[in-house]
């Protein structure tokens, strides 16, 4: 379970949000909403431990995430704005490296199946620099199909650059992960239909408005 207590984030002179608390349990989806520049990405990076909150703390299964960083990272899959693909490697090689670093054990067959799930199996042997933006996103997301063992998925704008078919595929994947007791945190501007036991929602605009009013 992921628990946030009184998180505050300040970038430069600007305070993006403060006093943000939530609890995310098994099978729950957390959707972070807010206008551009409201701090969605910062919040997600704080959740990953890439960014230090200016106040407050995050706890994973009752322990601060910074205390056991590597243990926490093994439970986590993060897909950010950047696809984390090497242009000169093929889609399959990129997936192999990502899987190895993420501690997943998967053979080439399972990787091809993961790429196939996102409809990019035919690009497996092509360097990713010649793929389109949407195809590159699909290759990046194929990691998720191998990551069922990691309970917490943190996804920054996972639906960007995807076509309708891929959006549906990703929704299925997220729903299956949640159904098996996983947790998902995502930001998106699109309306998405993910079947989840509980959907939590943090609206950073509303949060900031409440802060200003207070």
């Amino acid at each position, binding site marked *: 379970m992921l628990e946030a207590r009184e998180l505050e984030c300040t970038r430069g002179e600007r305070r993006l949000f403060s006093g943000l608390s939530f609890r995310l349990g098994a099978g729950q989806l957390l959707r972070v909403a807010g206008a551009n520049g409201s701090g969605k990405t910062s919040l997600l990076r704080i959740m990953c431990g*890439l960014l230090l909150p200016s106040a407050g703390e995050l706890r994973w299964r009752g322990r601060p995430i910074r205390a056991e960083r590597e243990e926490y990272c093994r439970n986590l899959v993060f897909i950010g704005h950047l696809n*984390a693909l090497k242009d000169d490697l093929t889609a399959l090689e990129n997936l192999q490296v990502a899987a190895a670093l993420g501690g997943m054990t998967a053979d080439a067959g399972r990787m091809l199946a993961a790429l196939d799930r996102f409809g990019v199996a035919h690009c497996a042997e092509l360097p990713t620099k010649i793929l389109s933006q949407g195809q590159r996103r699909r290759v990046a997301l194929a990691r998720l199909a191998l990551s069922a063992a990691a309970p917490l998925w943190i996804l920054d704008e996972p639906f960007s650059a995807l076509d309708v078919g891929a959006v549906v595929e990703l929704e299925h994947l997220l729903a299956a992960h949640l159904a098996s007791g996983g947790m998902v945190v995502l930001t998106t501007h699109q309306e998405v239909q993910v079947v989840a036991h509980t959907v939590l929602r943090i609206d950073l605009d509303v949060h900031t408005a409440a802060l200003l009013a207070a």
Partner: protein
Amino acid sequence: MIRALGWVLRRDLLLAFRRRGDVVNALVFFIIVVSLFPLGVGPEASQLRNMAPGVLWVAALLACMLSLARLFAPDHQDGTLEQMLLAGEPLVVLVMGKVIAHWLVSGLPLVLMAPLLGLQFDLPGDALAVLCVSLLIGTPLLSLIGAVAAALTLGVRGSGVLVALLVLPLYVPVLIFGAGSVGATAAGTGAEAHLLLLGGFLALALVLAPWASAAALRIAME
């Protein structure tokens, strides 16, 4: 842990192989700089012998520094560095993998090329051997120190100049003892003391540099 290190190493070597041009650049730079000196200075053999260690070492140092920009910056740009920070493996280990790959790609070719280039300076056999050994100990040291500077300047504008400023004071002792070892052999005093000191620096850097680079990378990503 070793598996993760292996994967990082494999990935970086594969990338270097796919972008051979970048690798060859540094080596060609090294060869050109070293080869121009005998042409510019003239064919006086004793003068060439005297300046050979310094020239070869300075050229190796600059060639190594040129390639530092490629150590972390591309990974930072495409987001793979983020994934390394979240890999669930100690970052120090992954950094070590990258440094080893950097040395294999930009340090080792210089070591292998050095004896051939040393011949242009009429270096005797024992001096050539010492030159190779000193570069073999010294170039990993250059990669390790360079990794700290590259990590510290990650994402900073004009980082090339900044890297040079940060790294040069730390490179100077390596240069002095590296070039000094060859000079000492030529002078007949023996290179052991110089090489042992270089080895000591290397041991120290092996322990401290990956750790410092990893800490600097975490700060750079905030």
